[in-house]
């Protein structure tokens, strides 16, 4: 990891920054994302209200519409829900949890996928064959189904009393364990190409150990595409988290993510308080759209390397 910083510098020094400045879509999505990340990180101090502190809730203020609608209050810009929680504050806190799960599961999937891909590609033989078979089977099922299944198994293995507290970890595990395959396949492919090159031959002649060759020489050269996959994967992960929470097997209402908020709002759809479901849904859609657009741009910008 010691050569990570120079790598980062080389990355930013390349013509990719030029391509970034030239793409309006990329700049706008990056700005939107940055704003959302900052909001999520500083949600506890930025949010007008702490939606989890019962002392701050005033039941007389429940079901208020957004500020610009008649009957709305400027104290609650996007209105309040049935328990007088400020929708804007709930969204800020929800985004925090959504992004936390998203990032953590992407990191888990990337670390696992890169490690397994590196091992499979470098060692070959039975390790490789077994890994790729597992990957094939996993890939032939829709990711949401795999995530649901892992989720069900993990929750089943836990005592029912611990389920609410461990919801976060269960989610991260079920999404991460679903998504590693793509990283593994890509890294395995490039590892198999790299390991036949002369610099690896040279390193081996010098008596460098297998682990050192993998970590020091091959890893830095196969990481490029991983960044693209990780970006696109983040959008997927946030979506999957929202879907699981919406289906009722994700974050509990006491610790809501954007998906949970939408699920809660969905129950009140017929009582006419549309803002409780529409705003969290919009926040989720904008977040995912921005990540996808940025991912698309990154993929195109790095295209010659991918092909």
């Amino acid at each position, binding site marked *: 990891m010691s050569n990570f910083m120079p790598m980062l510098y080389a990355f930013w020094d390349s013509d990719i920054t030029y391509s970034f400045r030239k793409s309006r879509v990329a700049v706008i999505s990056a700005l939107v994302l940055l704003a959302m990340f900052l909001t999520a990180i500083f949600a506890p101090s930025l949010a007008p209200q702490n939606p989890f502190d019962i002392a701050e809730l005033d039941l007389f203020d429940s079901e208020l519409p957004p500020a610009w609608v008649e009957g709305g209050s400027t104290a609650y810009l996007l209105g309040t829900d049935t328990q007088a929680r400020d929708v804007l504050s709930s969204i800020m806190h929800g985004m925090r949890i959504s992004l936390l799960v998203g990032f953590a599961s992407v990191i888990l999937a990337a670390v696992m996928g890169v490690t397994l891909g590196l091992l499979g590609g470098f060692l070959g033989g039975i390790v490789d064959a077994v890994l790729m078979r597992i990957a094939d089977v996993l890939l*032939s099922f829709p990711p949401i189904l795999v995530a649901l299944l892992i989720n069900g198994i993990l929750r089943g293995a836990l005592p029912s009393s611990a389920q609410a507290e461990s919801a976060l970890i269960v989610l991260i595990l079920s999404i991460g364990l679903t998504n590693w395959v793509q990283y593994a396949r890509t890294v395995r492919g490039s590892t198999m190409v790299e390991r036949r090159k002369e610099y690896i031959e040279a390193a081996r002649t010098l008596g460098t150990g297998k682990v050192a060759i993998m970590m020091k020489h091959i890893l830095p050269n196969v990481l490029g595409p991983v960044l693209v996959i990780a970006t696109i994967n983040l959008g997927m992960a946030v979506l999957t988290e929202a879907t699981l929470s919406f289906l009722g097997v994700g974050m509990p209402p006491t610790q809501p993510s954007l998906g949970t908020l*939408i699920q809660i709002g969905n129950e009140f759809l017929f009582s006419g308080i549309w803002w409780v479901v*529409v705003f969290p849904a919009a926040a989720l859609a904008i977040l995912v759209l921005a990540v996808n657009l940025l991912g698309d741009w990154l993929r195109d910008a790095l295209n010659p390397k991918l092909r």
Partner: protein
Amino acid sequence: MFAFLIRRIIQAALVMLVVASIAFLMFRFLGDPISNLLPEDATVQDRTEMREKMGLNDPVLVQYGRFIVDAAQGDFGQSYRNNRPVSDLLAERFPATAELVLVAASLALALGIPLGIYTALNPRGWLSQGLQVISLLGISVPTFVTGILLILVFSVSLGWLPSFGRGTVVDLGWWTTGFLTVSGLKALILPAIMLALFQMTLIMRLVRAEMLEVLRADYIKFAKARGIPNRMLHFKYALKNTLIPVMTIFGLQLGGLIAFAIITETVFQWPGMGFLFIQAVNFTDVPVMAAYLVLVSFIFVVINTLVDLLYNVADPRLRAERTPARGV
């Protein structure tokens, strides 16, 4: 061709064996089947008898063999939550999911292919540009949000269409259908649209990309040079080659539709297998989870195998590559 068929079937059987093993492991080691099936006040003797009756004292390998044999005959034991045979539950719910997926798939194909062709032939038109933007939105907006918006507009605001359930269904004995009543058909509209939308955008993008690719091919240029009219060029020569990869992806996506039906069925409280599965995941109803897994995997594997075979039939080049001995 025959050798290929055999190879694919062996591969499919292997995948099913893996899936069945996972199902067995869940069945055996996830939660305690005894305490889930017996009432809370059951005595120790009851428990021992139950253990013996269910064969939980046999060696694991014997249990595994029995599980496989039972599963192959569609017997997955009792649901922990409903105290009914799992196979009955699934058989009851299957028609609802099948009809939903069938309608959604037809809708996605019927709209996606023409729209894809249109955007490929008129890439600069405003409609094409608009469709590209919508398709990007369609991929980023989660399906359940689309469903909620549909309900908000067509059920809550306009009150035109029902937001939950299947409406009145006609019982045909082994199958319940919503196709035969007005309320059944009305209930089908919103869920089918929600389920079809994502697939439709996918097919549209795919058809567009493939068509643009094919239109650049040499044989199209030759045909153009020979003065073959555009309509024939596009629909007779280009479309055929466009649709082969579309067919493959669509076949694979059919499995995706069944999985995504879980979400649609939850949004619209559609009494299908997906709704049953999500309730099972929620309550750790292991037999239902295991049975759903095996059934859906079976459907996937059958579809994948069929698609592979069809692909082989449709694209002569593949056959030529696989049977070089004949000197084709």
